[in-house]
Structure formats: C-alpha cells, structure tokens
C-alpha cells in the first residue's frame, strides 16, 4: 500500500472562505502540493486528474496544482508523472468547497507511466493501443555499465540484450522479438531525442530519463522502413524543479568470473614427454618439480572502474535547463583493454510567450580505449591473447634469461600472451556529437507545428601497431590506421492536431515530412616492414611498404508520415498510422514503399459493468494491432553494378595495387524487406495497480528478405543479392509487477518472461545454405552453420559424437576415415555403415527459447535493497576454445581433463588417447548447454537523513553498494555462455572462440545533491 498523506482541512472553514474567493457557481476546487517522497522536493509537471472526468491540472515549478470547476461529489484523484509511481486518493468535494490534497510520489521504474514517448509524440499509457515497455533512468542509475543499453538486460519482456563481447567498448547484441533478416542488421532502431539512428553506446547513461521500447507494428510503423526490428526511444532529462547541483560517483573493482583449470607445469611435462610423437627437439624435465606459469593470472587482473557525474538542472518560469558532465573510466580485466569516456550535455527548453517553444539538445562524447586481440584464430596471426593465455605452455616463464618475452615451446606461429599485450597497440578514439534544435508553435489551441533540425557527427579513429617481435606481424612490424567518419543531417516537420469533440470523442491527428542524409567516409593507411618499433603507428613513413585507401558513401531518406488516434469515451481506442519512405539505397524501380498499421484497444476497466462485477480490477485493457514495417539495412549502392579497385598485381618487376575486378551487376528491382506483425495484448491491473500484468502474443513474418542467392560460378559471380525468402518469429511475452507497502516497509517484485521461436519459411527455392561459424584457422571446420527451410536461425551443423573407439577392430569396422583406437567415434546417423557428409545433422541452436528477468526491491525507511536476476534458457553454445585444448600430450597447454586420457587400462569414453587429436570438424562434443541464470545486480542503498546531510552542506546524500554479475548458474564450461565471437549476427550466433571473459563487478557509489 502506498503511503500517502492526505490532508483534509476543516470543511467548514473552507466553506466560508470559498463563498467569496471561488467562482460564483456552486462547484468546488481541489488544490495541493506534490512532492517527491524520497527527497521532499516539489515535483513539477505532475498531471493531477479526477478519474472518470476530463478535469485535470499540472503542478507548477513549486509543485502546486489547482483543479477548478469541480462539481460536488466523491472522486478518485490521481497524480501521475513519468518516473514516479502514481499517487491515488479519494476526496469529497462539497459545494463551493476548496479541498486540499497533497501528494508524496515515490520515484519508481517500470510501471504504468502516464505518458510514454511513441515516436513523433507522446501518448498516455492508458490510451496506448500498441505494445510499449518503458524503463526509467533512476532504476539503472546505479548500474556501472560502460554503455546505456547494457543496463536494459532482463528488464523488458521480449528484449534480449546480450553481451557478446565483454571487452570495454565492444558492441552489444539487442533483439526485440527475434531477428528478422538473414543478411541485414537486426538491431532495433535507436532514436535519441528524435535523432534517428543515434548511437546509444556513446551517450552518457546518466543523462537518460526514459527508454521507451516500441515492439509491435502499431507502435513501430510510424518509423516505416526502419521499424521492423523494433524501436528504442530514448528521452534525455530536462531541467526540473529549482536549480540544483548534483554530483554522483561510483568506484569499483571488476574480476574475471572464472579461472579455467589447465595443466600445471609438472602435469604438462609428464604428458608431453610420454607422448611418443612429441617433437624431440624439446626435452622437458619430468623428474624434478617445475615451476608453473599460470598465464591466466599473468594476463588477467582485478581492474578498477569509476564514474563521475556533475549535473546542473532546474527550471524557472518558462526555461528548463540541464547541464551535465561525465567522466567514466574502465580498465578491462584483461591487461591491454580499457575505455575512458568523457561527455558533456546541454539541454535547454525555452518557452517564448504562450504559444512558442524552442529547445535544444546538444551532446558531445569522446572516448579513448585500447582493445586486446580476442575472437580471432591462431595460425599465422600469432593468436589472440585470450587463447594464448590458456594454451601457452606452463613450463615457460613470462620472460627468458635475457629479459625478453619467452617464445613458444616449439617454433610456431604463436606469441607469448604478455608479449602480445605489451608489444601490440590497438587504440580507438571516438568523437561523437549530436546537436538538435527544435521549435514548436501552437497557432491554434490543439494544433502544434513542430520542426526540428539535427546534426550528428561521428569520427572513429583506430590505430594499431604490431611489433616486429611478434609473429602476428610476420616479424616485420605492421601499422594500421583506420579513420571512419559519418555525418547525418535530419530535418523533421510535423503538425499535430488534438481535438476533443464533445465529451465522448477525442481525436489526435499527426502529419509530417522528414528528410535525412548520411555521409560516410573511410580513410585507411597501412605500413608493413618497420626497422624499429620505436615510433609505431605515429610514423608510417618508416615502413618499407605503405599503402592507403579511401572510400565514401552517401544515403538519403525522404518520408511522409501520418497518424490518427481516436478514442471514444476514453474506452474505445483506435490508432492508424502510415508512413511512406523513399530511400536512395533501393533500385530505380522500387524507390518508395508504404507502411501502414492499425490497432484497436478496449479499456474494459472503464466499463461500468466491469467495475461492478470485479471491483478489484483497476486496469484492464485489451489490444489488437497489425501492421507492416520495413528494413533497409542493406549496404548502399547494392542495386548498382560495380567495379572493385584495389587488387594487387605485378607487371614484370613492378608491383601495382590498383587492379580492377568486376564485383556486381545491376539489379533494378531491389527493394525493402517487409515485416508484417500481428500483436494481441492485455494490460491488467488489480487492487489499485498493486498488481499489474502485461501479456502479449505476436506473430511477425518478414518477406522479400534480402538474400545472396547462389548462382553457378560459371557466370563469373558466386551470388547476387535479391529479395526472396521469408522468416517468421512467433512468441509470447509476460510481465508481472507487484507492489505492497505496510508499516513503512515497501516491497516490489516484478518479473518478465518471453518465449520466441524463429523459423525460416522460404529461401527462394533453395532448401538451405551453409556458413562457417568457426574461425578460419580451423580449415576443416567449414559449413558448420546451416540455415534451412523449416528451421530456426542459429543452427549448428556437424557430426554426432559417440565417444571413443575402444578397440582397433571397432575403429576398422566403423566406416569412418582416419578412425583409430582411442580416437573420436562419430555416429553413423543414416545407418549406411560409412561416415560422410550425410551423417551430419543439426546439433543445437544458439537462440534461447526462454528469456526471463526477475526484479525485486525492498525499501524500509531510508534503506533499500534491489535485486535483478535474469537468464536465458534452452540454447546451446559451441565451445571452439575447448576444441583445441583436449589433445593429451600436445605441445600447447591442455585442460586438466586430458589427464584421464584413454589407455587400454583406462578405457575412457570421453577423452582420446595420448597424441590423438579430437576429430577435426564440428561434432556434438563441442556443443554445450548455454542455459544460465544470473544474479545480474544487487544494490543496497541508504539515503542519509537530511539533518546529517545539512551538517556538511548538502541537501541530499545517497550512498550505495552494488554488485554486478556476482553469480551465474550455468552448465557451460567456459567463461561466459552469452558470448558470440562472430559478433552480433543471428546466423552465426553462439560460437565461443577465445572470447573476452565475463566479469564480476562490485562498486560503491554516492550521489550528492547541493
């Protein structure tokens, strides 16, 4: 139960006063002050309404509101504002009486926010016909994440936020209701303060007020050709309340989540020397105790993380101002990886007169970071640090007797992991700025004209240098400099008309027109063959061979959009949207496409019969929506024929680097991928919204998939991109939230679970195609990803592993080429007594069937504890890293499990014999269950009492202790089951190939208000 203090002042006194002061008619008034429960500060812009009528008012800068012309009666009064739990009270207004009702609102996250952003406008949550979930800034404020979207994990039903690579500054994989496209980017569209396509990783997380996640067609169709993957609308903070100055900080430590058990020096030496085929040029001493180099301890460390934020915010009269500055520094748990970010923000809203409003949103972020080499294979590249940290022989010390980094056990293309860290530089510097200027004008009451102009500029500079001492540069020294720039202009003009017709009809019309242009440029230079490492990439001229290249692309989008929102008696809601997008990326015959949607909703809870029947129901809305959205995530110029320039060739003794090869012919019919989505949803609230349930069921089918259809090589090409193919995603989402309060103790529990299944319906006549998910250093592991009609995306394809051959007779009779006793046995799936490609089958799938998140918070007086548990169930991961570490007696380090190698006296069925490598291809031996449940976040918070704070001159002080990713329950044997070394792709998802390990973080933080 919410604790609210309602103050009823003596009716009689008011009655007398009201007689003269208020209006001549017999209606009364309601007035009061709205304050925040935790800080006591007045809250502005709170919508206080009399439920069941259109009487409403908004609190001002001092939190005061007044509702006039209230007929006498008993009313349910409700105060609502984004970011706060609604306040409810019942009041009685007598004739001519002025009733006082104050509110103390509790800030809170997920809840039936009164107003959500819906794309080109806002809408009351009560009137929403589409599927939208919201997460507010305060809830994620204490999460020490290096990018804002990471904090959404587990909080939104239907949204999968996956850290595919835990290295600071790396990409993140976000999917809403599954991935649609085979070749395009399936990430949701990010819109920050109206800027379409902005980069959430380069925004200061503390600047964010809300995330509104648009999931179904009715909500996303207004984004037309870019809405198919869902939309994340981000609204940054506005100045509020009297001017105040806040400083918040946290500081913490991160640690690797696990230590993989590998052989120590004695065990390694023993097995190596026992191996009859070991390279005789190396002799290891098996008689005396050798000292072990634990390479994992050498390269991983406990790494600090800190964040400092200053914010000035306030509003006075018609101005609201927010200024913020942020500095974030994260060292990675792997040496050689780190990220530092500084950002500034200036948000101004200014009213000019009653009808005109101007505003600006300007932000600039600069990041500087170093990356360690992960996720790539071994072979001639020297190897990634994460792999070498496990495989480099434990008998070798970090440095040899001369003080140089030790080499590998046998001459080979492997580098000492510390050498890779110290002798390889990979620095990325990013500058990102967004500036938006907008103006709104209300020529007539209910009509708002808005125009906005925004400019986004991004510059990413990556500078790499690989030392001459590393195999990775072929001992020549190699420098790479890559600079990528992108600038975007966006002009949006909209007109919104709101009309209430009589007491029953409410109509909002929106029409608009936008234009956008993005220019990308890339410049790169490479130098190979340095005489010394001293100058690195700062002096490319030192190299024997310097080459350079540049590239530029441009794309443009023109759109017309419109929306109609109609509500009848506040109970029957209808929404229709349409958007026509023209994009330069599409072929001459198909430049324009139209995306409509329609939705209806019925607020059953406002029906009198329901209120009588089940009074416990405070909110019940049924929704249905259908619509189409598009995806234009294909490369620019794809419909045009092209020559590629840059192939090296030689004429006599001279080498040239500008050979031209034909790469594409014209496809004049290339067009959008279209997604048609149906959604049915229920929003239920019981007991005054103490218990809320939101459920959605959806079906979305994407057709005209852009797919590189294979053609015979005899045409001179391998494939051509065309629109064929269909993929479907179907699923359910459920979110439940409960609140209870008694005697000062408030408990909130919430949870969400979602279930999604994808299926390939059509590949344009092809039955399937293959990709390679493992890296290129395992050349026999080809075609281990299969995309097949009737199957979901993300399937692994290979042989079934059936244990170990226990006898040579068994091996000889197996029909398996290269079968030996003590070696891997493969299953003859089709029973034809030989092992060939017909025995390959689907071994697992990387897409989780179930995603869930559980949140809980307990607040008592000034303390609060909050917990987030999340997980993903029913999916597999291919552990490629392990595949190279289970050869007993090998010359690189192996897992301790090899100690149980097969012998005639130890007939193991899970480990091969000495010197016998596992089968060289994907088998089910490497496919592991990735399901996990993770204690994502635990935070304990204390609001220091005001009087204590006042002693040190602060208005407000909050301290907290937070832990991230403290515990993970999973059967996965490697560092983290969420990784994906092939990036964020949906097809090659779930491959763990020397990825960056997950980390546990503990932080301590304070937030001070002056």
């Amino acid at each position, binding site marked *: 139960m919410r604790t609210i203090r309602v103050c009823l002042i003596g009716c009689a006194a008011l009655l007398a006063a009201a007689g003269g002061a208020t209006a001549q008619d017999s209606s009364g008034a309601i007035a009061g002050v709205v304050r925040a429960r935790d800080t006591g500060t007045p809250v502005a812009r709170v919508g206080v309404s009399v439920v069941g009528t259109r009487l409403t008012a908004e609190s001002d800068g001092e939190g005061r509101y007044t509702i006039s012309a209230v007929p006498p009666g008993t009313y349910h009064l409700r105060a609502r504002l984004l970011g706060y739990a609604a306040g409810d009270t019942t009041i009685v207004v007598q004739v001519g009486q002025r009733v006082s009702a104050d509110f103390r609102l509790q800030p809170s996250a997920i809840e039936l926010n009164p107003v959500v952003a819906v794309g080109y406008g806002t809408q009351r949550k009560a009137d929403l016909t589409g599927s939208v979930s919201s997460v507010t800034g305060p809830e994620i404020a204490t999460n020490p994440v290096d990018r804002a979207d990471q904090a959404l994990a587990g909080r939104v039903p239907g949204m999968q936020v996956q850290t595919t690579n835990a290295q600071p500054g790396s990409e993140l994989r976000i999917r809403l209701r599954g991935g649609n496209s085979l070749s395009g980017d399936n990430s949701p569209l990010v819109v920050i303060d109206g800027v379409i396509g902005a980069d959430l990783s380069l925004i200061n997380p503390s600047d964010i007020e809300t995330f509104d996640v648009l999931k179904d067609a009715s909500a996303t169709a207004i984004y037309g050709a870019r809405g198919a993957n869902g939309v994340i609308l981000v609204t940054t903070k506005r100045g509020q309340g009297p001017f105040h100055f806040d400083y918040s900080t946290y500081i913490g430590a991160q640690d690797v989540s696990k230590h993989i058990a590998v052989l120590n020096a004695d065990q390694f030496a023993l097995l190596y020397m026992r191996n009859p085929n070991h390279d005789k040029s190396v002799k290891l001493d098996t008689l005396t105790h050798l000292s072990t180099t634990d390479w994992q301890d050498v390269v991983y460390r406990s790494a600090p993380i800190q964040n400092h934020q200053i914010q000035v915010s306030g509003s006075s009269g018609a101005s609201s101002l927010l200024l913020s500055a942020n500095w974030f520094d994260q060292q990675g748990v792997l040496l050689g990886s780190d990220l530092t970010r500084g950002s500034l923000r200036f948000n101004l809203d200014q009213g000019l007169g009653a009808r005109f409003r101007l505003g600006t949103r300007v932000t600039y972020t600069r990041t500087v970071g170093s990356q360690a080499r992960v996720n790539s294979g071994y072979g001639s590249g020297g190897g990634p640090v994460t792999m070498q940290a496990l495989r480099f022989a434990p008998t070798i010390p970090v440095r040899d007797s001369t003080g140089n980094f030790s080499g590998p056990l046998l001459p080979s293309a492997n580098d000492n992991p510390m050498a890779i860290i110290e002798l390889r530089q990979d620095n990325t510097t990013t500058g990102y700025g967004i500036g938006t200027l907008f103006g709104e004008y209300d020529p007539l009451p209910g009509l708002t004209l808005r125009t906005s102009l925004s400019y986004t500029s991004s510059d990413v500079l990556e500078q790499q240098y690989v030392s001459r001492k590393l195999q990775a540069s*072929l001992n020549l020294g190699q420098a790479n400099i890559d600079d990528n720039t992108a600038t975007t202009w966006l002009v949006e003009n909209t007109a919104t008309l709101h009309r209430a017709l009589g007491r029953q009809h409410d109509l909002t019309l929106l029409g608009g027109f936008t234009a956008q242009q993005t220019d990308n440029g890339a410049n790169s230079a490479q130098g190979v063959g340095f005489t010394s490492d001293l100058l690195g990439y700062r002096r490319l001229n030192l190299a024997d061979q310097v080459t350079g290249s540049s590239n530029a692309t*441009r794309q443009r989008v023109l759109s017309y959009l419109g929306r109609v929102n109609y509500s009848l008696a506040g109970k029957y809601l209808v929404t229709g949207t349409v958007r026509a997008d023209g994009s330069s990326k599409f072929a001459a015959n198909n430049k324009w496409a139209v995306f409509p949607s329609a939705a209806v909703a019925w607020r059953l809870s406002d029906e009198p019969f329901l209120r009588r029947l089940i009074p416990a129901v405070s909110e019940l809305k049924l929704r249905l929506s259908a619509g189409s959205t598009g995806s234009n995530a294909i490369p620019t110029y794809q419909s*045009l024929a092209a020559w590629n320039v840059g*192939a090296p060739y030689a004429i006599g003794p001279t080498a040239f680097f*500008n*050979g*031209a090869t*034909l790469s594409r012919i014209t496809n004049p019919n290339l067009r959008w991928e279209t997604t048609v989505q149906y959604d049915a949803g229920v929003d239920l609230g019981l007991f005054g919204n103490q218990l809320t349930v939101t459920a959605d069921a959806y079906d979305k089918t994407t057709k005209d998939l852009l797919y590189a259809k294979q053609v*015979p090589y*005899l045409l001179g090409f391998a494939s051509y991109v065309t629109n064929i193919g269909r993929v479907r995603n179907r699923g359910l989402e459920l979110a439940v939230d409960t609140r209870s309060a008694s005697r000062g103790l408030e408990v909130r529990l919430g949870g969400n679970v979602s279930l999604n299944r994808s299926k390939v319906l059509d590949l344009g006549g092809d039955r399937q195609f293959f990709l390679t998910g493992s890296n290129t250093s395992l050349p026999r592991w080809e075609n281990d990803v299969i995309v097949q009609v009737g199957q979901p995306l993300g399937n692994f394809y290979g042989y079934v592993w059936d244990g170990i051959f226990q006898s040579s007779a068994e091996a000889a009779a197996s029909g398996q080429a290269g079968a030996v006793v003590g070696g891997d046995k493969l299953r003859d799936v089709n029973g034809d007594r030989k092992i060939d490609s017909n025995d390959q089958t689907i071994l697992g799938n990387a897409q989780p069937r179930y995603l869930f998140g559980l949140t809980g918070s307990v607040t008592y007086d000034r303390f609060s504890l909050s917990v987030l548990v999340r997980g993903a169930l029913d999916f597999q991961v291919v552990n490629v890293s392990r595949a190279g570490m289970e050869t007993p007696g090998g010359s690189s380090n192996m897992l301790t499990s090899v100690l149980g190698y097969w012998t005639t006296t130890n007939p193991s069925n899970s480990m091969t014999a000495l010197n016998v490598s596992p089968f060289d291809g994907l088998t089910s031996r490497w496919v592991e269950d990735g399901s996990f449940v993770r204690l994502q976040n635990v935070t304990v918070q204390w609001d220091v009492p005001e009087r204590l704070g006042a002693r040190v001159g602060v208005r407000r002080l909050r301290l907290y202790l937070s832990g991230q990713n403290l515990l993970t329950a999973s059967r996965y044997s490697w560092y983290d089951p969420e990784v994906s070394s092939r990036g964020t792709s949906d097809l090659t998802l779930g491959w763990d190939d020397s990825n960056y390990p997950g980390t546990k973080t503990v932080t301590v933080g304070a937030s001070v208000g002056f």
Partner: protein
Amino acid sequence: MILRTLSLAVIALTLGGCRGWLVEEPQSFFTPDDFPTTEADLKIALGGIDDWYTGGQSQAYFHRGWPMITEVPSDQTVAQSASDSRYAQDSYTLNASNEWLWRVWRQIYGAINQANVLIARIPQMDQVSQSVRDRYLGAVKFHRAFNHFNAVRVWGSVPLMMRPTAEFATATQITRAPTAEIYDSIARDLADAATLLPLRWPDSSTPDDGRPTRGAATAMLADVYLNMSGAIVQQNHWAEAAAAAKAVIDSKAYTLVPNFADLWLIKNKNGPEHIYSIQFGGLKRNLFTSQSRPSGIGVESGINYWYSTPDFMATFSDSDARKKTTFLTQVTVGTTTYRYDTLPGFFGDKRPRFPKPMPYYGKFYDANGSIANNNGRTDLNWPIYRYADVLLMFAEAENEANGPTPDAYGAINQVRARAKLAPLAGLSQDQFRDSVHRERSWELAFESKRLFDLKRWGSFYAVLSQDPVAKIGLQPFMVFLPIPQREIDLDPGLGQNTGW
C-alpha cells in the same frame, strides 16, 4: 500562422518534388557505364584479370589450386597427405565435391567473365586510340582463350562463355558445349590475339612481363593445335601446330638460357626464355615455393604438401644438367647439410606407403635468400610457356606432320644441348616421337604439363595405372575430372561427366 504553414508546404513540395534527390550516385567506385574509359583504366582492368589468377580464397588458381588438379594427379608428383582433398586428387579417389574442383573453376570463369566484359566494352571506347584498343582487345581475348583452354583440358566439355553475364534468371539453363566447338573458339580467339598483340608491350623491358604478347598467343595456339590433334579431339592440326611453333621460333624474340639452373632464380624471372608467366610480387607473393619444400630443414622449411618420386628421378640420366636443378636432394642451411636420403638431417619423406625416400622439387626452391620472411612466400613467377617448350612442341608437331625433318632435329637438339645431353639423329618417326615424349617429361617436369601430355597422347590410363598412388582409384573415364557438384546443383542442365 499562415506564413508558417505556407513555408512548410513549400518545403514539402520542393523536396518532395525532388525525386532526383534519391538517385544513388556512387562516390567511390566505378560502374560499367563509366569504366573503363581511358588507356590507364584498361591497364588496371587487365591487372584485375591477373587477380583472378593470383588471388581468390585459399590461393585458388596459380598458387595452389592449379597444381593441385593438374600436377598432383600426375606420375611425377605425389601428395604428402594420405587422407584429405589433396590425396583424393592424387589417388583418383575424389568425388565431385572435392574443394579444388570448384575453387579452380570459380577463378577460371571469373576471369572469363571479366574478359568478356572488356571484349564488349573496348570497341566502344572512343577516347582511346585504335592501336591501344587493339592491343588490349588482343590481351583480353588471350585471357578468354587461356581460361577456356585450361577448363577444357581438365574437364572436357565445359560451358563456353562468350558474352558477359547480364542477368541471372537464365543461369539454370546454361549447358556445356562439345569439346571440338570449344577448341575451335579458343583457336579463333588466339589467332585474333596473335594478330592484335605486339611482340613486346611498348613500356616493357622484357618480352615477358606478365601481359599477353604475340609470342604468348602463338605459343599457346601451337599447344591448342597439339591438343586438338591428340587422342581427345582426334583431328589433324599437326601442320598448323608446327607452323605456329615455327612462327615463335622465327620471331627470334626468345632464346634458351644457357644454364638451366639460372632459369629458376627469382632474379632472372621474365628472362629471355620466358614467353608467358603468371607474375608474383609486391603484396601478391606465391605459395608454391613453400608447398614443394620439405619441412625438416630448419628455418628454410616449407609446408611439405608434395614432392616427387625416386622412380621419376631415376628416369633422368646422370649427365643430364637438369637433374640437379629439377630435384632437391641436398640443402645446406647455415652450417647444417641435409640430404633427402641419409641421416643425419634426413628430409626426404618416407612412409610405410613409400619404401624409398622421396626427393623434393628443386625448380621452385629459390626464395631470394630465405623463405623465413613473409610467411613462406616468394616472388617467383609461375611459368606457363617457355622457349624450350615451344621448341619441343615444334619438334613433336613437325615429326607428326612431316616425319623427323632436320628442323625437328634442330629444335629438339637445342634443348638437349642445353641439358648437356648428346644430340639425336637417325630415328624413325615412332622413335622420334618417343624421344620427344621423354624429353618433355624431363624438360618440363612439375610445370603442370605432364598430365595434359599424357591425356593427349592417349597414354593417360596406361601410364598412370602403373603409378602406385594413382592406381588406387584410377579408371579410364577419369581422363576428365568431374564437374563441380555445386555447379550441377545450381544448373542441372550441365550434367556430369560420364562415370562420375
């Protein structure tokens, strides 16, 4: 307010009316409408065709793929592996999915399509003078012929692609052309090329700089006629073959390098004996040096993919000056000397399936110092035609057309003289023929000639069924390799070669 709505409307109309605003104009690449336009453009387009030869995934054509399907299956070379796709080629146990089939096929047809695009484009290039256009037209016709020639010798009947690909809808209906028709087309292209091409490109200091020349086109034409006169096509073009070879000889553009060993050094590449070689250098270095190097010789080791046989080495006379250069039997690295057949420092591969140690390739050994740099790659060129080859082709063709004439003896004896072998005299036509056959096997060892020679002499099955590795899977129909399975899957109209 009226002003405001008006101005918005104006903006909307102007931009909305600007349909041209959405048309894509490439900023950083050429389209076939504007490229090639100048002579300089043609130069880089021709260089791009070379990229099909030296680039591609897995070093698909003249690094690794080509010897994989044309040299390894012969009786002069053995693959080191006993179980993978190399072995499958060597032992004739492969199937249509063998990776080297589609890898080479892909490069071949990629080059053909690019040549076709240029053949169609060049006549329209008004800004370029006629003489330049002729030269380049000759060059691209040469490339079209060269690749079809390679394909027809490996696979027999293959698709004859004479026009650039413009659309993909009819891809599933393309069929293979009869071998004779393909050969006719090749011969026509080469005859045209020979007319259009110069003996030497104006900006070149050597007759062979990697670009097609008249000598290259004519030498290849001789080779084509020899193939057409052989057991596969069974026509009679011996006289034309002899005439073509003679034209190369009479041009006096080439001479034999006196010391056979010098021919194979990187510093002597594109020398007076080279007529046409695939160029490697700069960022494109070859892998074939590494492939035929042993792996047990310290820092000079290679990746040991294949080697030769002691039986083949034994066919060389000890006085043959080519023997020492052709085979690698001894290597000194630093202070250590390795020998292929004796300890210590034994490097010749010896396995239960080979009773005697195997000698390695000597011809491609040169690495200009050390192979340890640059990931085991070198700048050595891959020779397609050498003057010695032309002399032997002349000797063979002349013998078939006119019997062993003095010209024929003259040609073959030049080659033998360079090899420090006694000249031939007084042989019958059959004996002369056998001598030429033997001489070719010694002179052109490991240059991907042997297998094609056996095929056109009709002795493919007879000879290879005596080879201990080839006979494992060999059957007579395997004179042609199977069409890659992928091509048949995507274009069922192709059909498969008999027997596969």
